[in-house]
């Protein structure tokens, strides 16, 4: 049954089997491949999108339970915090392979939107759900702080 979801500010019609997680709707149906598949069990954060501004695991969210919430993916995420994060990411070359990074950026952006001056401990708490096998953690921590400075 087709339903309509609000994704990156646009009403988007979706015709997927009931219960299909948002991740696969985004990737396979809407060809929005920014959110990645890393585990499918809510453990890695590669699939992170914003649900009314809050980072969620799209692999764990049935698309037919989204309702009228606003979904934002890396492709559509804009705003001061997002841009500061992107610039800091580019300035420091944070990503290695990049596969986890859309999730990292969505998590880091939500952190800064919520807390413009995060401490190391705040960063650990906000970011520890996002695994990076390339281990860009040290760069991520530095870049979040750099981004925070530009927002100050």
């Amino acid at each position, binding site marked *: 049954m087709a339903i309509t979801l609000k994704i990156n500010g646009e009403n988007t019609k979706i015709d*997927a*089997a009931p219960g*299909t*997680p948002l991740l*696969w709707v985004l*990737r*396979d*149906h809407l*060809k*929005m*491949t*920014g*959110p*990645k*598949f*890393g*585990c*499918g*069990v809510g*453990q*890695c954060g*590669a699939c992170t999108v914003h649900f009314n501004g809050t980072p969620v695991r799209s692999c764990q969210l049935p698309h037919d339970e989204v309702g009228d919430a606003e979904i934002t*993916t*890396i*492709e559509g995420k804009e705003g001061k915090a997002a841009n500061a*994060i*992107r610039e800091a*990411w*580019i*300035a420091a*070359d*944070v*990503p*290695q*392979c*990049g*596969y*986890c*990074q*859309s999730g990292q*950026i969505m998590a880091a952006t939500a952190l800064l939107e919520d807390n413009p001056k995060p401490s*190391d401990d705040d*960063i*650990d*708490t906000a*970011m*520890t*759900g*996002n*695994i*990076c*096998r*390339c*281990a*860009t*953690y*040290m*760069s*991520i*921590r530095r870049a979040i702080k750099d981004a925070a400075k530009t927002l100050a």
Partner: protein
Amino acid sequence: MLPRFLSPDTADYAATLSIPPLSRRGFVKASGAFALGITLIGRMRAEAAGSPLKEVAGGDATPSLWIAIEPDGTVKITCHRSEMGQQVWTSMAQIVADELEANWEKVEIVQALGHPKYGDQNTDGSRSVRYNFHRLRVAGAAMRTMLETAAAAHWGTTLANCKADQNYVLRPSTGDRLSFGELAAAAGKLEIPAEADVNLKSRDQWRYIGKEIPSLTVPLIVRGQGTFGIDVDRPGMVHAVVAHPPQVFGSVGSVDDAAALAVPGVMQTVQLPTPEAPPLFQPLGGVAVVAMDTWAAIQGRKALNITWQDGPNAGHDSDSYRELLQENTRNPGAVELDRGDTLTALSNAPNKLTAEYYVPNLAHSPMEPVHATAEWDGDTLECWACVQDPQSTRGVLAGFFGIDPDNIKVNATWLGGAFGRKSKPDFVVEAAFIAREVGKPVKVTWTREDDLQHGYYHAVSAQRLEAALDDDGNCRALLHRTAFPSIGSTFNAAADQGAGFELALGASDNPFEVPNLRLEVGKAPPHLRIGWLRSVCNIQPAFAVQSFADAMAHAAGRDPKDYLRDLIGSARIIDPNTEGATYPNYDASLEDYPIETGRLTHVLDKVAKMAKWGRSLPKGHGLGIAVHRAFLSYIATVIEVKVTNDGQLSIPGIWLAMDAGTVVNPRHARAQMEGGTIYGLSNALYGEITAKNGAVVQQNFPDWRLMRMSEAPRAFEVEIIDSTSRPAGIGEPATPPAAPALTNAIFAATGKRIRSLPILGPTGETLNLES
């Protein structure tokens, strides 16, 4: 709509794959319009008359193979290696663009198809820069010379009066200049110069090599752009996942797919052929579920009702296998290296020290599990996949399907991490097989469960070290026994022990200046697919030998760093071949890349200084040190740990000194040092793949655990030794010293010696501090 991923042989590939001039301004979508005016410098000439640069050291340096300059001055550089986060797009481009005198803002990357014309494309072994440094410099310099020659002809002057400079050729005496874009067509008609007529820049003229040039991929990544294996889309494409047999060489007894076919979106199932030994890069067999989307395929797989037939590995169990390996190191093995008379020295020794070490099987677990898309058109096949070697993938496909390689195109996408897993193209063959059965383009997704349960694992190993110590605690003799299933067993069913090429990774090149040294290897029959994982067999000897050095220092009552330095001894060059070993030296000559013990002690001294080795530490803190040569680079690591009374472990700081010869991009080299170290630490702390009844037990991240942000060190300092030596490996060599530096630090902090990995395991929260 354009297909999302096009090959360089497709007319408008530039529209999707090339990257815009790199600036901090952000991403601008490249226009496909200029593709019409493309000028491939020298290509016609090179192909008609032959190129004098076909056999430059490292391979073909014919400029047209690597560089195309368009009328608008865009410089397209072909990258024949796979981008997996090591920033090979950037490093290859830095080398070419520097010698070419290209303006960096004009550089775009074209990802090469797999083809023998590029020479080696196997992006593993930490050797992209090492293999290609010289020939890409020659290619860039040759094209620069042709552009200068074309300008000289235009102005009616001599070559000496023309000088390439940032996408222009200048004539300083008159102030005239012509752009590369204006000169491209004329330059393309010129003879390609011979290597002797090409002037490479001197080091002090380098603009890009050795500089912190920003990544060419990052501006795309931060927008969720770029195409990984999982992101490939083709018109009419369907999705598949495969239920693989639980054991290697297990097979499908019977299958009832009625419930699977009833899942909405599921289209059909396909039974795959059961492979025969050895594993090679054959698909594992099983049953594929083909569906409209990935989720439906996964649900369909769950609904399959398969009775599996046990294969020859059914009895394999990690617990009993560990005992077998340990037993095989308690008895003499085949001698791989023999110096002096170790056995006599050991039996006469006043003091002896013995220790046993264990490292389990490990899984690569790149964040992107393997993915491949295959599309047939009659007898021709095109694949898009996250492969480390598109060229060998093409060969494997040709062999499997019995078709001419010229009828196969393999596109390497970006790789979401690889670490050795993606140089085994079994998953691409799987996709091609299913696509042929289905008659549509098929993308095969490996879930995390597939990735962990059906990999090519890093070999489990047992090791035993015995030392004869004199009255001052100095090591007079060292016996090192090791047993691990060989990578060779993946290619040869009869291979039942570690081979010389594997022992040459950190075991037979033991740098200790001890009068008696003996390396023996014991039997280890294979039961899983064994592969190479970041730093390969260096992992186990570095852990054992560097841990044992620390233990010997403790037995001697000496400082571990000083003791380790004395073990390495004088600055000299060693050659394991002279002591019975087979030593390929990472496929480099020992003349070009000798084993220099002085470089080991240099990084050791350097890192000790960085970490302020010997400083007084708070209670519960300890420093551990390790040094290792791998992939022709020399790395020393110091780790500081903090262990609370109840065994909570954290890592406040890491210091690392690296001598990798000439470094093309220090910023990205530092990232590899951090990443390689954490990779080693994560595996050492948590990583363990085990088998029961031949099947891998671990399924997903809850039971295969990786280091997370909150566990990562707050301080990580890397120092790169300034060097004019030839470039050596960067991607892997930081991994081996990480584990022993950590366990040595834990010993320093707690007195607890860890000889068996993992330290904590998937569920462990605290160290068991009882001895």
